[in-house]
C-alpha cells in the first residue's frame, strides 16, 4: 500500500483498473503522517489529500478524532510554497468543516493568504475562510472582504461576493454594511462579477420594495453584460411588476418593453428566461404573450433537447390558462410526439390535448396510441389525465377516448397507472351518461383479469351503484359472480355486497341473486359468509320475492353521513356492553381546530376546563362540559356550538368571549371570562342580558361564576328557551355584573369586603347560520341527484357592487354557515363567474345542499343564482330567507 498510484496491475481487467483500487481508510490515515515530515514532499502530500477526498466523496465518514487529527496535520502544509498543494489544502479544509476552536489554528494562515500577491491565493482563502468562519471572526476580516469586493481581479471579487451571499444567511447585519462596495461591483466590467454583485445586492435589499424597484429601473436602462446577470435582472423585474400590479390600471405594463427586448438577446438563456417571465405575468394579455410564444415556437424545432424541453414545458403551462395562444405551435408540437426524449414527447402530447379542438381528437388519438407503448408509466399517467379532461371537454368524442382508455387498460402496467385509467373511466361514466354502459363493460372486462385487489373492490363497489340502473343489469351478474369463484377473500366479500345491491334494486333478478348468495354461505372466509348471511336476511331471502323496503335500500346505498374520523374515535371509545353502539352518537361536525392551537394563537386563554395538551375536539369538549351542568341536562342533544365571539376589545380589563350552543329548543350562551387585573378578585360573576330585541327567547336558567381570580379563565352560562325547531334569531345586549375585591399583589390575599360593579360588553346576535351545521358531502353531484328536485327552490339575487367575486362568494358562504364542497370556495384569480357548492345540516337534522352561481360584470355588480335542495320544503325556503334578509 506504499505506492498505490503507481501500482499498475497487469493481471486485472483494464476496466477494473482504478488508482484507488483496494483503498482503505485506516491506511490512508496512516499515510497522512507525511504531512508532519520536516521535509515536505508536496507531490506526495497532494496525492494523500486526493485519497482523503476520494474517500469522503465515496461517502466514507471520519470520526471526530480522525477528522481533527487530519485537520491538524493539514494545517502544517501551509509551510509549503507549492501552489498545487495549497489548492488541495483549501479543498480538504472545506470538506472537513472544522469546529470553531479548530478554525482559529488556520485563521492566521488564511488571512495571510487573503493578503497575498497571488490572486489565486486571495480568492481561495476568502472562500475557505468565509465557509468555515463564525460571526466573531467575521468582524476581524470584514475590512479585507470589503476591499476584495472591489478588487480589480474578477476572481477575487467574485469569491468575496459569493461568500457574501452565503454569509448573508447567518450574519445579515455585517453583510448589509457592504452595500456601497457591492453597488460599485454591480458596475464591474467583468461579466460574472456583475452577476454575483447583482445577486448579493438584491438579497441585501430584498425587503425594501422601493430599493429593488430603483435597482431594476436603473439596470434595465443600462447595460448588463453577463447572460446570467441578465437572467437575474429579468427575475427581479417580474417581481417588481408583480408587486406593482395592484396600482397599475389597464394600459401598458411597466417594464414590459424591457422583457420584450430581452427576447432579442443573443444568449438563448436570456431569451428563454424573458419568454418564461412574460408567460407568467399576472393577467397576461394575448398581445403581450404573442412575442414570447413566437420565440418559444422557434425553440421547439431546435436541435438541442434542452431547448426543446424548456420550450415545450413552458408552453404546456401556458396551455392551461391560454390554450388559444398556443394553438399556433400545434404543428411543431405534433412533430415532437416522436421525439427521442420521452419527457419532451409527453409534454408535447399533453399540450396538444389541452389545445386540440374537437376535429383533431381522432387524429391525435391515433398518434398517441403508437406512442403509449414505449413510454414509462409515470408519463402514461400524465397522458391519461390529459385525456380524461379532454373527454370532459368534448363529451361527443367519448367513444374514441373511452376505446383508447379500455385498450390501454388491457395492456401491461403498474398499479398507479391502472388506477389512473380506472379513475378516469369512472369519472367519464359519472359525467357522460352516454358513456355509462360501454364504460361499465370495460371495467367488467378489466376485473376479469386484474391483479390489484384495491382496484377490483373499487370497481365492484362502483358496479353495485351504477349497474342496477342500466338497461340490462343481468349482463353484469356473470362478471360479478365470477369474482366470487376466482378471487381472494377481500374481492369475494365485495362481490357479495355488489350482488346484494343488484338484488335489492332489480326485482326480476332477485331469485337468481338469492341462489348465488346462498352459495356464498359456504365460503371459506368468514367475512364473505357473514356478508352473504346479512344480505340474505335483509333482502328477505326466504324465497318470497318482495319489494325491497326503503330501510334496506338506505342501508345498502345510503352514504355514511358521519365523518369517518369521528366514527373511528367513537368506536374506539365504545366499551363493549349490553348497550349497542349508536351511530347517532357520533358527532357530525368536522373536528375544528383543537383547543391547544387556539390558545397558542391568542395569548388569552379562552378558558375551558380542558388541559391544552388533551387532544379533544372542541365539540367533544363542549358536550362534556355542558352535560356536566345539571341545569342543562334535560336540553337534549347538542346540535351545534359556534366559534367563540369576542365581546370585548383586546387588551381590556376583562376579556370576555361567548360560545353559542344550540339545542333543539334551547340556546345556551357560554361566556368565557378572564380577569386581567392582578389587583382584583371578582366574585359572583354573571352576565345580565337584555333580550328585548330577541322576542322569541325567554331566559330559563343561569349559572354564575363564584370566583374569577387574576388570569384564571372561568365560565358563566345563560340558557334561553325558544320555540322548538324554529330558527329564531335576535340580538342580546350584555352586561358583566360582579363583586370586585381588592387583592394585595404581594401576599395574594383578597380583602373581606367587595364592591358591586358592572362592565359593558358588546352585543351578541343569534343568526340563521347558528342553526346550520357544516357537514361536507364527498360527491356533491351524487348527493344532489339523490336528493331530487322535490323541495328545490331557485331564485336570483343581485348582490350590488362588490370589491371582487371572491369577496362576494365568501360573504355568502359565511352568511349561510354551510360547508363548501369539492374546493369550490376557491376561485381562479380573475374569473368572471363561479359556481360554489355547499352542504350542511339544518336544525332538526335536515340535510341541505346549495348550489350558488355567481357572475360579475365590468362595473363589479354581482348577480347570484341560488338553488337549494333539502329534505324539507320549509328548510329550502328558510335558506332563501337568510339570503333575502342578509
Amino acid at each position, binding site marked *: 500500500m506504499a505506492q498505490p498510484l503507481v501500482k499498475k496491475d497487469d493481471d486485472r481487467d483494464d476496466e477494473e483498473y482504478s488508482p484507488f483500487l483496494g483503498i482503505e481508510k485506516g491506511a490512508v490515515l496512516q499515510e497522512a503522517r507525511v504531512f508532519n515530515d520536516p521535509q515536505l514532499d508536496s507531490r506526495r502530500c497532494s496525492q494523500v489529500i486526493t485519497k482523503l477526498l476520494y474517500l469522503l466523496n465515496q*461517502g466514507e465518514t471520519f470520526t471526530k478524532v480522525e477528522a481533527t487529527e487530519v485537520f491538524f496535520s493539514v494545517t502544517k502544509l501551509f509551510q509549503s510554497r507549492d*501552489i498545487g498543494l495549497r489548492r488541495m489544502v483549501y479543498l480538504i479544509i472545506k470538506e472537513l468543516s472544522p469546529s470553531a476552536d479548530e478554525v482559529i489554528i488556520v485563521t492566521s494562515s488564511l488571512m495571510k493568504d487573503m493578503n497575498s500577491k497571488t490572486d489565486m491565493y486571495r480568492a481561495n482563502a476568502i472562500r475557505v475562510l468565509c465557509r468555515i468562519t463564525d460571526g466573531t471572526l467575521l468582524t476581524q476580516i470584514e475590512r479585507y472582504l470589503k476591499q476584495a469586493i472591489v478588487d480589480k481581479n474578477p476572481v477575487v471579487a467574485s469569491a468575496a461576493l459569493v461568500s457574501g451571499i452565503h454569509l448573508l444567511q447567518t450574519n445579515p447585519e455585517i453583510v448589509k454594511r457592504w452595500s456601497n462596495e457591492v453597488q460599485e461591483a454591480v458596475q464591474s466590467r467583468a461579466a*460574472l462579477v456583475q452577476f454575483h454583485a447583482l445577486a448579493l445586492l438584491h438579497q441585501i435589499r430584498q425587503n425594501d420594495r422601493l430599493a429593488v424597484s430603483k435597482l431594476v429601473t436603473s439596470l434595465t436602462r443600462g447595460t448588463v453584460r453577463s447572460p446570467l446577470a441578465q437572467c*437575474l435582472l429579468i427575475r427581479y423585474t417580474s417581481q417588481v411588476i408583480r408587486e406593482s400590479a395592484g396600482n397599475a390600471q389597464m394600459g401598458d405594463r411597466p417594464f414590459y418593453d424591457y422583457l420584450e427586448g430581452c427576447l432579442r438577446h443573443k444568449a438563448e438563456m436570456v431569451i428563454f428566461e424573458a419568454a418564461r417571465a412574460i408567460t*407568467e405575468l399576472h393577467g397576461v394579455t394575448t398581445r403581450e404573450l404573442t412575442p414570447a410564444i413566437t420565440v418559444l415556437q422557434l425553440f421547439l424545432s431546435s436541435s438541442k433537447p*434542452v431547448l426543446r*424541453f424548456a420550450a415545450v414545458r413552458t408552453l404546456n403551462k401556458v396551455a392551461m390558462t391560454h390554450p388559444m395562444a398556443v394553438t399556433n405551435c400545434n404543428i411543431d408540437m405534433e412533430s415532437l410526439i416522436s421525439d427521442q426524449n420521452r*419527457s419532451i414527447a409527453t409534454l408535447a402530447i399533453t399540450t396538444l390535448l389541452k389545445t386540440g379542438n374537437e376535429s383533431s381528437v381522432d387524429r391525435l388519438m391515433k398518434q398517441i396510441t403508437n406512442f403509449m407503448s414505449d413510454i414509462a408509466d409515470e408519463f402514461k399517467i400524465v397522458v391519461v389525465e390529459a385525456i380524461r379532461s379532454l373527454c370532459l371537454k368534448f363529451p361527443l368524442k367519448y367513444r374514441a377516448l373511452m376505446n383508447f382508455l379500455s385498450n390501454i387498460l388491457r395492456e401491461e402496467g403498474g398499479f398507479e397507472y391502472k388506477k389512473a385509467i380506472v379513475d378516469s373511466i369512472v369519472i367519464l361514466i359519472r359525467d357522460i351518461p352516454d358513456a355509462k354502459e360501454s364504460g361499465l363493460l370495460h371495467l367488467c372486462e378489466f376485473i376479469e383479469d386484474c391483479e390489484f385487489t384495491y382496484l377490483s373492490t373499487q370497481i365492484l363497489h362502483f358496479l353495485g351503484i351504477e349497474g342496477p340502473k342500466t338497461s340490462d343489469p343481468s349482463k353484469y351478474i356473470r362478471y360479478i359472480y365470477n369474482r366470487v369463484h376466482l378471487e381472494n377473500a377481500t374481492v369475494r366479500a365485495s362481490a357479495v355486497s355488489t350482488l346484494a345491491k343488484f338484488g335489492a334494486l332489480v326485482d326480476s333478478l332477485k331469485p337468481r341473486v338469492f341462489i348465488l348468495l346462498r352459495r356464498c354461505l359456504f365460503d371459506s372466509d368468514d367475512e364473505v359468509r357473514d356478508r352473504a348471511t346479512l344480505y340474505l336476511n335483509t333482502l328477505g331471502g326466504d324465497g318470497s320475492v318482495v319489494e325491497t323496503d326503503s330501510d334496506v335500500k338506505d342501508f345498502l346505498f345510503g352514504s355514511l353521513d358521519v365523518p369517518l374520523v369521528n366514527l373511528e374515535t367513537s368506536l374506539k371509545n365504545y366499551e363493549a356492553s349490553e348497550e349497542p353502539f349508536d351511530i347517532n352518537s357520533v358527532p357530525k361536525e368536522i373536528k375544528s381546530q383543537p383547543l391547544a392551537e387556539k390558545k397558542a394563537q391568542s395569548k388569552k386563554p379562552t378558558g375551558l376546563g380542558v388541559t391544552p395538551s388533551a387532544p379533544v375536539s372542541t365539540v367533544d369538549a363542549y358536550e362534556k362540559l355542558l352535560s356536566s351542568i345539571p341545569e342543562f341536562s334535560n336540553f337534549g342533544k347538542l346540535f351545534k356550538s359556534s366559534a367563540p365571539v369576542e365581546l370585548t376589545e383586546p387588551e381590556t380589563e376583562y376579556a370576555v368571549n361567548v360560545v353559542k350552543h344550540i339545542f333543539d329548543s334551547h340556546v345556551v350562551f357560554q361566556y368565557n371570562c378572564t380577569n386581567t387585573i392582578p389587583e382584583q378578585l371578582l366574585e359572583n360573576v354573571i352576565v345580565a342580558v337584555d333580550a328585548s330585541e330577541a322576542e322569541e327567547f325567554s331566559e330559563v336558567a343561569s349559572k354564575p361564576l363564584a370566583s374569577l381570580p387574576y388570569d384564571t379563565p372561568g365560565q358563566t352560562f345563560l340558557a334561553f328557551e325558544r320555540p322548538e325547531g324554529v330558527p329564531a334569531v335576535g340580538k342580546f345586549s350584555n352586561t358583566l355584573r360582579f363583586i370586585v375585591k381588592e387583592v394585595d399583589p404581594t401576599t395574594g390575599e383578597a380583602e373581606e369586603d367587595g364592591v358591586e360593579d358592572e362592565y359593558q360588553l358588546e352585543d351578541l346576535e343569534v343568526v340563521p347560520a347558528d342553526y346550520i351545521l357544516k357537514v361536507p358531502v364527498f360527491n356533491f353531484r351524487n348527493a344532489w341527484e339523490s336528493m331530487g328536485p322535490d323541495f328545490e327552490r331557485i331564485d336570483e339575487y343581485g348582490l350590488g357592487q362588490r370589491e371582487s367575486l371572491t369577496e362576494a362568494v365568501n360573504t355568502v358562504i359565511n352568511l349561510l354557515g354551510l360547508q363548501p364542497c369539492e374546493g369550490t370556495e376557491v376561485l381562479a384569480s380573475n374569473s368572471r363567474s363561479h359556481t360554489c357548492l355547499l352542504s350542511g345540516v339544518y336544525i332538526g337534522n335536515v340535510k341541505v345542499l346549495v348550489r350558488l352561481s355567481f357572475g360579475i360584470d365590468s362595473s363589479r355588480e354581482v348577480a347570484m343564482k341560488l338553488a337549494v335542495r333539502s329534505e324539507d320544503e320549509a328548510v329550502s325556503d328558510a335558506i332563501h330567507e337568510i339570503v333575502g334578509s342578509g
Partner: protein
Amino acid sequence: MESCPSIKNILLLDSEGKRVAVKYYSEDWPTNSAKESFEKAVFTKTQKTNARTEAEIAMFENTIVVYKFVQDLHFFVTGGDNENELILSTVLQGFFDAVGILLRGNVDKKEALENLDLILLCLDEIVDGGIVLETDSNVIASKVASHSIDAGAPLSEQTISQALATAREHLARSLLK
C-alpha cells in the same frame, strides 16, 4: 422565483452508475444513502438515452437533470424544477468541456480517476455552495491548471501547453463529427 439560479448537485458517474466524483450543494439529500439512491435513480433512467452528441434533459421528482455522456463517463447537473433549464445546461457544458481540456481529450473513467485532483478542483471552481461561479470552460480549466503547475514553471510554457490541449480537443471533436 426571484432567487438566484442555483445548482443542487453535480455528478460524475461511471458506466455502472458508480461515483467518480460528486458534489451536493442542497440539503435535499441529507444522508449518503439518500444521495446514492438519487444517483441510482438518475443513472438507471438516463442510461438508455443517447446523450453523447447533445446534452439531454429529464425530470426526477422535483428536480431537473441535464446530462451528457462521453466514453464511460456520465455527467449530470441537477437543479430545482423551477430553474431555467438553459442555465443548468450551460453549467453542464462548462463542466464537461473543462474536464475535456484538463484531461487533454482523453475523457474516460481511468483518466478521470488518475487526475481526480483536477476533477475535484474543477468542481470547486464551477459552483460554490450552489451558486454558479464560472461557466466558461477555458477559464475554469485555466484556473485549475494554473494550480497544478509548479510555482517555478515559466508562464509561457504553461500557456503553450494549454493551447496545445485546447487544439487537441478541437481536433478530436472535428474528427468525431
